């Protein structure tokens, strides 16, 4: 097995071991049995060697051993991490006062959501919903008096568990014992808060919330109605700071710097700009992942080394899972983001290839040659949207119950507008931080697009039709992805890359 193929499949099987152990309290037998089963699956799909000969029998056996060992290793790694991060001495169901440091604070319209790392004698994190006052910030030492509850078993419990949160409190009495000292991360959050403050003073609340979501991934100011509208139109991903959003920033930054600088210098400038963006959003794990993936894939595309993108995606996933193995099974954002990104990297080019030879009805026949850039942006948006939705469909059905077929239309419309809106949003924030007196001029340029995006989302959410509500089950999902693998991921065209 060539090294790059070994790395890719080795990572996949390690992650598979982590995934299996996430759900099954675990036996090596289950993992080994899964490994053997997967060997059969892999044997069927495994690409032939470049010399057009099959692997020797002994080599195949070693591959099986190698991959099965990695499954077991993945399972053990998860078990090891789990045993180290269990909560300690949390008094569920009893009125108590618990103290700790705030590691996350989100201020919403009528409440605050905080995550607190409890101090001795307790261990673990607590998620609390508290009233808007006193205002609690990142790094503050707080005391919460109330009842600690265990999260209800199900998706919410798993969602909290991935962040090592094992207890929740609803409107406890909150007291700030000490305000936090200066930390680097705290200062990043302050800058992020300032940028959000700029948007909230320039734009009406709804547009300010959307701009904060697009540029900083912050959805705390969204109303419940607007969140539901985004779910019905399948546009939640535009504010998720996924690989797609960061790719938009990367490609725009590269285009801008390429005009002034040589290619290599432009890439370095784009790199530092992306790092600044990551820091601005508080260096959340999802943003770091998205930034690394997006930048490296863009870099490889420019260098014509797109074939390595599979290993890049695998390496990034491996790094994230090694940091916190629970994200693989329990972080919906991680799952959807990776799947959508895989769709964009592997499926979108195939769709764009098909569209290249066709003019879309909305683009006039005389608007340049078919496939020229004048049609490219709409076709690209369509390809990205469809490919991301194809990859995420089983998970969307699993987590959100329904997926609306009509969501393709608002998605294409909104996705086409997002890059310019984001660019103007960053420009507004930058100018406002440096010269607030003139920032409103830049803001007025982005307002029509923000207003248009909110109108599209609200309009199409009211007329959402053809909901798909299908319970695929695990087997159905596996068969679905096997079909996608066959159709899009295996090589059948020299112009498209594959694993």
């Amino acid at each position, binding site marked *: 097995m060539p090294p790059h193929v070994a790395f890719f499949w080795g990572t996949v099987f390690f992650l598979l071991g982590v995934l299996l152990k996430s759900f099954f309290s675990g036996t090596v037998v289950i993992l080994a049995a899964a490994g053997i089963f997967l060997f059969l699956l892999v044997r069927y799909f495994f690409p032939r060697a470049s010399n057009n000969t099959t692997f020797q029998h002994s080599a195949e056996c070693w591959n099986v051993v190698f991959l099965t060992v990695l499954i077991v290793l993945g399972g053990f790694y998860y078990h090891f991490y789990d045993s180290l991060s269990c909560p300690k001495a949390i008094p569920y169901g009893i009125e108590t006062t618990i103290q700790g440091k705030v590691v996350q604070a989100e201020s919403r319209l009528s409440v605050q959501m905080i995550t607190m790392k409890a101090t001795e004698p307790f261990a673990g994190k607590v998620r609390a919903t508290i009233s808007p006052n006193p205002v609690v910030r990142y790094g503050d030492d707080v005391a919460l008096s109330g009842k600690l509850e265990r999260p209800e078993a199900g998706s919410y419990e798993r969602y909290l568990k991935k962040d090592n949160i094992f207890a929740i409190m609803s409107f406890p009495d909150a007291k700030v014992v000490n305000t936090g000292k200066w930390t680097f991360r705290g200062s990043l959050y302050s800058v992020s808060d300032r940028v959000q403050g700029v948007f909230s003073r320039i734009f009406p609340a709804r547009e300010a919330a959307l701009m904060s979501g697009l540029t900083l991934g912050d959805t705390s100011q969204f109303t419940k109605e607007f969140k539901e509208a985004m779910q019905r139109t399948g546009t939640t991903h535009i504010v998720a700071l996924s690989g797609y959003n960061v790719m938009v920033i990367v*490609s725009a930054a590269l285009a801008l710097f390429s005009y002034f600088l040589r290619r290599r210098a432009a890439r370095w400038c784009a790199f530092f700009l992306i790092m600044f963006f990551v820091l601005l959003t508080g260096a959340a794990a999802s943003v770091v992942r998205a930034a690394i993936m997006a930048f490296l894939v863009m870099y490889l595309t420019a260098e014509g080394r797109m074939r390595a993108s599979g290993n890049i995606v695998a390496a990034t996933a491996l790094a994230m899972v090694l940091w916190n193995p629970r994200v693989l099974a329990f972080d919906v954002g991680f799952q959807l983001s990776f799947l959508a990104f895989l769709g964009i990297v592997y499926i979108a080019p195939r769709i764009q290839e098909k569209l290249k030879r066709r003019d879309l009805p909305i683009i006039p026949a005389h608007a340049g040659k078919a496939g020229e*850039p004048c049609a490219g942006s709409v076709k690209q948006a369509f390809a990205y949207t469809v490919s991301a939705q194809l990859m995420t469909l089983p998970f969307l059905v699993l987590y959100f119950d329904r997926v609306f077929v009509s969501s393709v239309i608002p998605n294409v419309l909104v996705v086409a507008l997002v890059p310019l809106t984001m660019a103007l949003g960053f420009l507004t924030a930058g100018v406002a931080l440096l010269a607030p007196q003139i920032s409103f001029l830049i803001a007025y340029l982005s307002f029509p697009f923000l207003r248009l995006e909110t109108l599209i989302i609200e309009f199409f959410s009211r007329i959402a039709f053809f909901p798909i509500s299908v319970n695929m089950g695990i087997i159905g999902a596996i068969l679905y992805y096997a079909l996608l693998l066959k159709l899009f991921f295996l090589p059948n065209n020299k112009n498209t890359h594959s694993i």
Partner: protein
Amino acid sequence: MEEKKHFLEVLNDAYGGRKLMFFAVGGALLLFSIFSVSAIAKDDSFTQYFLSVGQGDSEAVRLHGGAVALIDGGPPNGRALRELEKILPFYKRSVDVVLLTHPEEDHFGGLIEVLKRFNVGIVVTSGDVNETESFYELKRVMEERKIKEIALSAGDKIRSGDITLSVLWPPEGEHSGKRNENALVLLAEAGGKKTLFLSDVPENIEEKFAGEVGGADIVKVGHHGSRTSSGESLLFATQPAVAVIEVGENRYGHPAPETLQRLEYAGAQIFRTDRDGTLGVRFESGQLKVFRVK
């Protein structure tokens, strides 16, 4: 050596040559937004708004030249901000005067977000204070945003063109131990038309200034329609054509059936923000018009 592309070519490659369409659409939308729904910007009539903020009070009064006065901000649920932005044009990010009738959270809670997001000229209070965390936060935001505060009392007036906001209560230097009894009571007048904002004052306080009002076309009913407010003597003195009750879901039984009865007996047409949403009241060609704001 690689030939550098012109910046417009780089943009063209990025956005597919449709930038002209984008700018045209954007420009058109901008113009549309500027001249679109904006009751206050276009409107020269004497108009007030009663914002649907849940169990709390918040009203907006249009002043001369498009200026705005906001009376109270409702509870801290984000609704005062949302409703205020419905009645203002998108480019108006200032509230000229904020009047906080008294420091109860269902009156000032929502003001914190308003003060953070809008440029506020001045905050008028009765001088009363509270010692809750949320009130301290309100004060902190005012200090951070460098917003001046002034305490007014009975006899003081705010004039803006032909519109006058008069303070009817409390008298200077006279503060009781009960916060509701110290609340600012305001009378907005223009061209002989009057709107009375009763805040949360109880009946025993109403009797002290009822005689000064001399008739009111619109009354913002006291204390969310509580049975201890909007007494017979005040309603007899004011004879309002329209009574607006600002109320939401609550466990106090607001509005009280006795209050509704008194209002009906006084001949007032009753509107409620929990059922009718945010309401606008305007005088046009000598007629009083009440409309819903959506």
